[in-house]
């Protein structure tokens, strides 16, 4: 199969879906050239730097029969649109008694590792998970990016796509034909029997590297990528932990109230899964600090394959 990058896979999803559905249009402060070339300036608009307005306009257009795609570009910029996200988009379907649909895709890059310092290196998905009414995807491969974005555009709810900055140039096999990946279905990226590693976004790849290191030490790790945070595939995670009896959660966000905490809780609050635990759950997350700029500092803050492998060794009593 041909190889394209994670960023190209995302653009391909948009090109195909905008071709497929004339009710889609695209707003962002920097209009993507491939979309403008194909669909023109009426449907692909470069906008003033007014993310709050763009976020709200997506809601109004969605409620008027359109399927808007709003690219915040970096999750950082979503914060200036928080009223529209929190007070409006997440609640509007429920608040109005479900009388109409609001299909909107909001896109943003997340994560650090590219020396962009505190504001532009964030992974705040748990802030949005804490709301009710927003779906969210977090792809880790070019294949998943295209398939999940296509599903997200076709979904009848507001969906946030968190796209890892570190993975934008990553190459991988992506079919040229149309395919979708359902929301709420985790992907077991590697099967194993001794320990379950649930990893998010870029850390899926670090977890796979850690699993390879551990394999040589005789430890068999299973690596699960939830792929979507809302809905979250609880069953796949729980049944894996029921098999292995050990859970490591790896996340590029800080641990406090993070997606990692939610994943740990869904394992420990489930009686059947809790009974199978041989060791306490371990989280491998960023340190709870704003992300620093200088490379040695930033590298110290984020989790990586060594930290994941060490956590596994601890729960295997091989530290």
């Amino acid at each position, binding site marked *: 199969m041909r190889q394209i990058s994670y960023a190209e896979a995302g653009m391909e999803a948009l090109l195909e879906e905008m071709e497929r559905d004339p009710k889609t249009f695209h707003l962002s402060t920097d209009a993507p050239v491939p979309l403008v070339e194909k669909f023109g300036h009426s449907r692909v608009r470069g906008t003033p730097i007014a993310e709050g307005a763009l976020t*709200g306009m997506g809601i*109004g257009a*969605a409620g008027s*029969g*359109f399927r808007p795609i709003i690219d915040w570009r970096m999750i950082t910029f979503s914060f200036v649109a928080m009223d529209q996200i929190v007070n409006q988009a997440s609640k509007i379907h429920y608040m*109005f008694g479900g009388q109409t649909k609001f299909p909107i895709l909001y896109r943003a890059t997340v994560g650090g590792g590219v020396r962009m310092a505190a504001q532009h290196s964030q992974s705040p998905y748990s802030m949005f998970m804490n709301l009710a009414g927003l779906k969210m995807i977090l792809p880790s491969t070019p294949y998943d990016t295209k398939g999940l974005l296509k599903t997200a555009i076709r979904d009848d709810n507001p969906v946030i796509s968190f796209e890892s900055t570190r993975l934008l140039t990553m190459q991988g096999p992506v079919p040229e034909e149309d395919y979708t990946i359902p929301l709420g279905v985790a992907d077991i990226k590697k099967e194993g029997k001794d320990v379950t590693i649930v990893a998010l976004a870029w850390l899926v790849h670090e977890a796979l590297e850690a699993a390879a290191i551990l394999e040589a030490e005789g430890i068999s790790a299973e690596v699960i990528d939830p792929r979507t945070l809302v809905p979250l595939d609880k069953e796949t995670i729980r049944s894996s932990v029921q098999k292995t009896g050990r859970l490591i959660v790896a996340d590029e966000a800080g641990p406090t109230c993070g997606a990692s905490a939610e994943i740990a809780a869904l394992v420990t609050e489930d009686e059947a899964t809790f009974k199978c635990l041989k060791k306490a759950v371990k989280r491998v997350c960023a340190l709870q600090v704003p992300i620093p700029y200088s490379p040695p500092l930033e590298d110290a803050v984020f989790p990586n394959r060594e930290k994941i492998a060490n956590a596994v060794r601890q729960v295997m009593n091989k530290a």
Partner: protein
Amino acid sequence: MEISPEKQREMLRTMQRIRRFEERASDDYVAGDIYGTVHCYIGEEAVAVGVCSALDNDDQIISTHRGHGHCIAKGADINLMMAELYGRETGYCKGKGGSMHIADFSIGMLGANGIVAGGISIITGAGLAAQLDGKGRVAVSFFGDGASGAGPFHESLNIAAAWKLPMIYVCENNLWAVNTAAENALSIPDVGSRASSYGIPGIIVDGNDIFAVHEAAHNAVERARRGDGPTLIECKTYRHRRHTERPTQPDVRPQKEIDEWLKKDPIDRLVQHLQQQQGQLSTEEWKQMDDEILREVEESVNFAKNSPFPGAEKATEDVFA
């Protein structure tokens, strides 16, 4: 502009329907049958009715926390509105929204909103949708003087003007944002004059003169339908009541100012116009119209009271489509 006596009487009926609905909502709120809070539109009826009477059913509006008047002016069913205030299953939002979140997408009413300025960019998106659809639909944003100091006002007017969206921005300047006087919060007294910084028409009208409001709206709608872009209309008006109907709600407005504005009641003015200048409304006809409206409102309360509360199991429905 020429408005037929029939249409004027229809405008009067809608204004009075708003007034009587609000009076009843206030009473029933104070009595404990309506929960949360109620913001009455009394005194500002000429704005909603003057604007909405210039719109078609397909045209869209968005409202504010003080939203009942806009709903009624756009043609909402007061039974479903009252049931929503009563928290009943038959309400517009199945009892999930209440006073600050009544919407009826089937008549182009995109919702009241509990956040000041929260609706301005949403309705601007409806304006973009109207432009992309190309069917001549227009979209109207109602907001107050308080919202004119918030970011979405500027962001939305700038975009709408830059893209010539078919938008009408209607500022209901009632001089007070809760208890903050506009004169202490606005850099210039006329919100309408800010239109010049977006290169669009800014029309300032007496918001208690329904004919002035209607004419301004009519012209703005024509301009928007032609594809010439948005208009900002500022309606100088006043709420007769406190910010909310909560009995302990403070009100710092000077009594003299309130009294002056009560003399400019928009409904009294239209009644006088119809009766004295046109001879188109006898005292008996006016009494009969009011009685009919009072009966409608009473029926809406009966409808609400006879409707069931939503079952607790409904709390988890409609989070997602």
